[in-house]
């Protein structure tokens, strides 16, 4: 089933795929440590989110947050974005009409989404993907690595046209953390991000 990048379904599919994949098991056999992921909103995202299915995917992750958690976004770029879309942070997600939100997304400019980030985590551990989910910005602050980049770079990764290592080397993505460990375990990074390209996106 085709899914939206970054939606709950997408995270679940990656996890399922990884835990059946021999290449992943081998590539991450000695890996220890979480990787925090940061997707930065850009023009390509605005284009995608003008489609109803994408908004539905986005809302599926927002709906995982409690109202208290959502309140933490007050005054942040994400909070401001919700306001620009016409929603309060404690809105009942079930009442949001995806078609209407997609229309509102299509009227936004790059300035409106400046600084908006979506966070996630993946944590392979000795051949098993034990954690793979969206997270709050303050979670996993001490993760061994942070992999961040604009939405378009993540999409390039999902299309299989470029690997995470290529994207990081060319500066399209940023990788921070324990680099001497990463140097010896780059295969693990590639083993996971290679799976992204096997997931069909809407």
């Amino acid at each position, binding site marked *: 089933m085709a899914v939206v990048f970054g939606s709950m379904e997408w995270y679940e599919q990656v996890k399922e795929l990884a835990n059946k994949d021999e290449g992943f098991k081998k590539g991450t056999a000695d890996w220890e440590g979480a990787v925090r992921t940061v997707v930065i909103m850009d023009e390509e995202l605005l284009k995608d989110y003008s489609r109803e299915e994408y908004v539905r995917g986005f809302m599926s992750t927002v709906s995982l947050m409690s109202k208290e958690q959502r309140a933490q976004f007050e005054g942040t770029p994400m909070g401001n974005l919700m306001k620009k879309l016409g929603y309060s942070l404690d809105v009942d997600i079930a009442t949001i009409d995806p078609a209407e939100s997609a229309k509102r997304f299509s009227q936004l400019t790059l300035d409106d989404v400046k600084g908006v980030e979506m966070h996630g985590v993946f944590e392979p551990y000795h051949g098993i993907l034990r954690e793979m989910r969206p997270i709050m910005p303050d979670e996993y602050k001490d993760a061994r690595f942070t992999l961040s980049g604009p939405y378009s770079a993540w999409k390039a990764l999902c299309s299989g046209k470029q690997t995470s*290592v290529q994207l990081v080397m060319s500066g399209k993505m940023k990788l921070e953390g324990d680099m001497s460990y990463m140097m010896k375990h780059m295969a693990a990074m590639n083993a996971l991000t290679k799976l992204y390209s096997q997931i069909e996106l809407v």
Partner: protein
Amino acid sequence: MYFEIDSGIRENEELTMLREQTHKFAAEVIRPAAKELDQMEPRKVAQKDSPYFDVMKQMKKMGYHRMQVLKEHGGLELTPDEIHIINEELGWGSVGLTTAIGVDSIPLAMASLAGSPELIEEVVRPWMEDTEGKYHGCWPVMEEAHGSDYVIGMSYPYPEEFGNKGFVTADRDGDGWVINGAKSYWTSSAPCANYAFLIVNLPPHRSIADIGGCIVPLTLPGVTQGPPIDKLGLRDDPQGELAFDNVRIPAHYMLLAEPVFGRFATKGVISSTSCGMACMFTGLARAAFEEALKYTRERVQGGRPLIEHDVVKLKLSDMFLKVETARYFTRVVLRHVSERSRALTFDQSTAHALSAQVYATNIAYEVAHQSRQLHGANGLTKDYLIEKLYRDATAGLMEDGANEALSLEAAYSFLEEGRYTTE
């Protein structure tokens, strides 16, 4: 021709054929052209009507520049054993022209491994389709102010000690990059090349560790290619300076834009080139050994051919040992480095790769020296191949890193990577 001790290779018909075919090319095309180029004025070597370009064209027809390029981009993606066999045979022919085809493929291989789909379309594909020798690559790393610094700086923990002046710099400029500075006149093939995989210093330009790398068409405004230098060895590969004055490249030509990765990736590239050096200098050592065998069979002193004297046999045995150990050590290292480099995993064990280069170039120099000594005064004349082999072997101790610097970096590397434990 030597006896292949590894039965897996000896009994493999395809590899045996590849060796014979490459050897024939090295003997019939490379050696005679290299001899002619060796005795020409450097300026003439780099001129369009020089045999240099004919040989490059023929090497491209044979596909030697495509060895490392991924199949999906039109390359051959040869196995490490195939790469090893080809490089040793070409090096047997001449290390100068082998260096030329080697550096030619660096921008290509880097663009294929790390480039965006646009770069593959703009540079790699047309280059792959070129049978006329229109494209020619080079690999400028060192500057006048920084030679060994680049080698030792890969793992040395205090690279800022090497200063922060004299680099070729790249700075962001709108959605592209702008490049300034000059690379050393030791850049192989630079006077003839039209593309470079250029090593640059990235912002904030604190030290040699702020390293990056990009593809630069040398036809861009602001690039100056210096004249070929006159030198002792590798005279069949023209070398010269490259200067960059506000040269602008688009963002997707910058392959290594992050210093941390630039440092790892450069170690990866140097590990691959070190393996190439080790293969071709094993070839040179073998050529020098064969010249000694030939000469000592013919030359009679003390009433019998030199080869019949036990003291000469002992020397030949020592040379044999050196050539054979270089071949088999290099082959095993190349297998590991090649596999890991293609996977872009940066765990290729640089220490092994650099040590293979140091070992092969050291023994090539020693064997060439021993062989030249066995040639008596004839070994000092241009009538005998050993004279050129000896000069080329001398250059091998410095090419792609002084052996002392490579050894030092190998030590830093295996200590840092924790690959040698005593538990």
